[in-house]
């Protein structure tokens, strides 16, 4: 990571940083809008009077206040990696202020909305923006230390005490993460007429969360937690699972969010399957959504829906297994002719298969897909006597409708992740990675590449088929419309955005691609445009995704798997060679001296 070019001499760093923090404080307490916006009051008392009651601030203004306080503390207290922390706060505050400013200006019809009009003054957002810039500049002038490395021996304890201490830390960390996730989901409210400003409030909250995470990263805490969780893997997984299952009990436990979360789960499971094909084995698949669709239609036909031609009604677990199996078979079928095809051509062949599926489904082939009328009226899953679309009471709290689907999905995603992790570290997984890196070398090493590739397709398709079965029961209808080419592209984008070849990557990618459109429904019209542009920008600036596989990151960034830049290694090698030569020059001289 290169240092920020400091415009400022180091002497000015601390004053600037302090000034930034103070500006944040002032900005938070100034009014932000000069009048009550026409669509309704902007949230969090944006027109609060000057310097009134700082403790009554809420929402994004409270966040900005917090950043100001933290920035001042970080400037003056001994903080490891000060520059990184301050920089994170600076950017976070800047984002909060800028987004709010832009939105108020947009809705308010002019810059007067955030400056002054009709005798009202409101410079809050401008002060916030300036404060952010000042803080960033100040942080840039400080020396950029490395991220501190915290010892994985918590409090220096060993053995069982150490383990318990580590577990305690992990528990706290994951609980905090759960809280943050539920805050993120509910930020801004559900949107729509009741919450007209949901979009920008959400974005401003993202600024806050981002700044916070950036600061934690700078302090080294996130890296520490990551390492701790790797050391205590079993415990971490259990806790994560519990946290995921606990989401319905938090603020985000409404029917709406359960449905969104369940949809994310389905797509995440599918994305992990795709991750096997694309991320592990390196086989570009542009028609993947077809397998989701095959699983969906098989399950629909076996569900006892009135509109299905196959009149069977099988219990859900059996139907799901059959769906997965049929999808897997089709995966193998798609995989076999592609053995001879590489790279781009493979992408096109899979795209062709995907389109063939879409069009045959559209035309109601064999009366199995219902064509344009689709297969509606699919009954909800019913296991253990409860239909999954009912509300359930657990632990004394009434949980929203759809929570059972959510639990099922969490368990399925967890199972799929386990499958993925096991595969990745198994023989076949290593074979896939070898094929991805260089197929000819892999074959030369004795790997049966043909079989491995078919297996990759088969496994990936099976997982997608399983996800499809759940999907169709949750949605209640199986229509060819849900399986367009664009969905394949979105799935691929989720895998890439999240980071290929990693488990959390696929889940993260799927979450982003489904939560963001829901949260930002105001910008509906631009959704696809932003999606296309995002694809371009991601491949340009961060092709390895958000949570990159180490090997992948290396591949894309010109580094070895350990993260050292290849150029640096080469330079080092040259330097070592020169040092060697020098020593040899001197050795004969000393040898002469000692008379050897």
């Amino acid at each position, binding site marked *: 990571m290169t240092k920020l070019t400091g415009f400022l001499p180091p002497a000015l760093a601390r004053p600037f940083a302090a000034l930034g923090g103070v500006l944040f404080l002032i900005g938070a307490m100034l009014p932000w809008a000069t009048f009550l916006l026409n669509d309704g009051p902007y949230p969090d008392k944006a027109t609060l009077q000057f310097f009134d009651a700082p403790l009554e601030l809420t929402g994004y203004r409270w966040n900005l206040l917090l950043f100001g306080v933290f920035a001042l503390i970080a400037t003056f207290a001994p903080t490891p990696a000060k520059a990184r922390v301050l920089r994170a706060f600076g950017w976070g505050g800047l984002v909060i202020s800028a987004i709010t400013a832009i939105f108020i200006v947009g809705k308010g019809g002019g*810059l007067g909305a955030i400056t002054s009009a009709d005798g009202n003054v409101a410079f809050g957002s401008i002060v916030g923006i300036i404060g952010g810039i000042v803080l960033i500049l100040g942080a840039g002038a400080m020396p950029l230390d490395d991220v501190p490395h915290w010892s994985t021996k918590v409090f220096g304890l060993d053995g069982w005490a150490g383990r318990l201490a580590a577990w305690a830390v992990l528990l706290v960390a994951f609980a905090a993460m759960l809280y943050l996730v539920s805050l993120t989901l509910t930020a801004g409210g*559900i949107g729509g007429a*009741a919450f007209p400003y949901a979009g920008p409030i959400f974005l401003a909250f993202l600024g806050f969360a981002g700044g916070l995470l950036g600061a934690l990263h700078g302090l080294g805490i996130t890296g520490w937690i990551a390492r701790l969780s790797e050391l205590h893997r079993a415990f971490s997984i259990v806790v994560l699972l519990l946290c995921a299952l606990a989401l319905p009990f938090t603020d985000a436990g409404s029917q*709406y969010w359960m449905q969104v979360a369940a949809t994310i789960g389905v797509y995440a499971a599918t994305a992990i399957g795709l991750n096997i094909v694309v991320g592990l084995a390196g086989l570009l698949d542009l028609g993947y959504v077809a397998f989701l669709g095959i699983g969906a239609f098989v399950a629909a036909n076996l569900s006892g829906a009135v509109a299905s031609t196959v009149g069977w009604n099988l219990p859900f677990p059996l139907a799901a297994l059959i769906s997965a199996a049929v999808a897997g078979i089709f995966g193998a079928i798609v995989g076999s002719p592609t053995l001879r095809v590489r790279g781009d051509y493979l992408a096109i062949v899979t795209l062709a298969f995907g389109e063939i599926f879409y069009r045959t489904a559209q035309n109601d082939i064999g009366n199995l897909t219902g064509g344009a*009328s689709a297969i509606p*009226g699919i009954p909800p899953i019913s296991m253990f006597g409860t239909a999954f679309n009912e509300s359930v009471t657990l632990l004394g709290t009434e949980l929203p409708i759809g929570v059972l689907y959510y639990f099922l999905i969490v368990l399925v995603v967890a199972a799929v992740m386990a499958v993925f992790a096991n595969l990745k570290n198994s023989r076949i997984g290593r074979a896939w990675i070898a094929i991805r890196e260089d197929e000819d070398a892999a074959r030369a090493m004795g790997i049966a590449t043909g079989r491995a590739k078919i297996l990759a397709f088969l496994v990936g398709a099976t997982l997608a088929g399983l996800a499809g079965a759940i999907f169709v029961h949750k*949605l209640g209808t199986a229509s060819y419309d*849900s399986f367009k080419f664009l969905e394949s592209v979105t799935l691929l984008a989720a895998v890439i955005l999240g980071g290929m070849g990693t488990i959390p990557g696929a889940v993260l990618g799927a979450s982003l691609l489904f939560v963001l459109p829901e949260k930002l429904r105001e910008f509906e019209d631009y959704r696809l445009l932003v999606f296309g542009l995002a694809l371009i920008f991601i491949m340009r600036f961060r092709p390895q995704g958000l949570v990159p596989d180490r090997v992948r990151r290396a591949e894309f960034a010109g580094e070895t798997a350990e993260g050292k830049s290849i150029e640096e290694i080469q330079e080092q090698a040259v330097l070592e060679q020169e040092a060697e030569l020098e020593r040899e020059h001197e050795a004969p001289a000393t040898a002469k001296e000692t008379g050897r």
Partner: protein
Amino acid sequence: MRNQTVKAASLVAAGVLLLAACGTNKEEAPAGGGDNQAACDTSKGTLVVGVISPQSGELSALGLGIKNATDLAVNQANEKCTVKGYKLVVQAEDDQKNPQIGAQAATKLASTPGVVGVVSTLNSSVSQSVQPILDQAGILQISPANTNDTLTKGENFDTAPKRPYKTYFRTCTVDSLQGPYAADYLIDKAGKKNIAIITDGLTYGEGLADTFTKEAEKKGAKIVTRQKIGEKDTDFSSQIAAVKPFKPDAVYYGGQYPQAGPLSKQLAGAGLNVPLMGGDGIFDDNFIKLGGKDGDLATSVGAPTEELDSAKAFVDAYGKAGYKEGFSAYGAFAYDAANAIITSLSKTVGDKEWSDSMRADPVKNTQEYSGEGATGKVAFDEYGDSTNKVLTVYQVSGGKWDPVQTGEFGG
């Protein structure tokens, strides 16, 4: 360096002061329209009329027409203070013609407090996912455009009709009426005997074509061939070439105007100078602009606009409101649907306070609703279908749609 910082700082300060001079769009009273607002009491809060339709993507012209028409109805209601003590707002959600996005939109509306009714959807396939969700929450749903009979009468709609959802109504006509009515006109009045059918493969088109075929064959006409075009096709030469050897004397089209217009033009261009007839999906001025020729026919619900004052009032008001998109094929139906919701709501609320537990009452009131709308008489039968069985056949002549026959479908 010092100089630069000072310069930069002064620039910023100057800029900020300049910004202060810029204006705002602040209106004299909050939430637009001073005097009228003063007349309406909105002390009890806001209630929401939802809209679910495709607002992005291929069918956005139709979906946005629905949204705008609902918006018009709501604005008019606010001006007239129809619902005492409450302000009405529209919450429009995009379903992107995709069932699961539609389901999510429905869930979102179902979880929003203050939602009293939803005008949805355009596509029957999306409605299938939306119905159960809204029904479970007890929310009133009126569709301006779903024509598939199964939505109100269940899978066996012709033999054993059973209403699946009490909360679902529609203001548009259904396939089982429109198709046969068209067949009657085309065969009896226009004297066509060999008819070719082309559809766009979607629920609406297929449904229309099916009912048309049944009635046509009952009347002794021959359906010489049936072809499908792709959803996004603009080049119909293959299908036309497949149809031509059968020498049909008319073509019945099941689908929407964006494709019907060019299809009509290409038919003529290929030497098949026969009338193209379609349902309310092609009854739009854009059909003519895109290639509809004189002699083409369409059916639509209700008596012709010129004969109905309420229809004329709608068209005028819509034009004056200045929406970017036209109200297209289903705007009038959406307007009526929204008004039904609003009127039922005002009856329910009366002088009381609204609470979400009262959601069943607008449903009941809608069942008993009756009024004059932009499409004629609006009321609902025991299945939730519109009782307005009046249909009109229009013909293109001189570059405009002219009504040629109005009546009810008897059979």
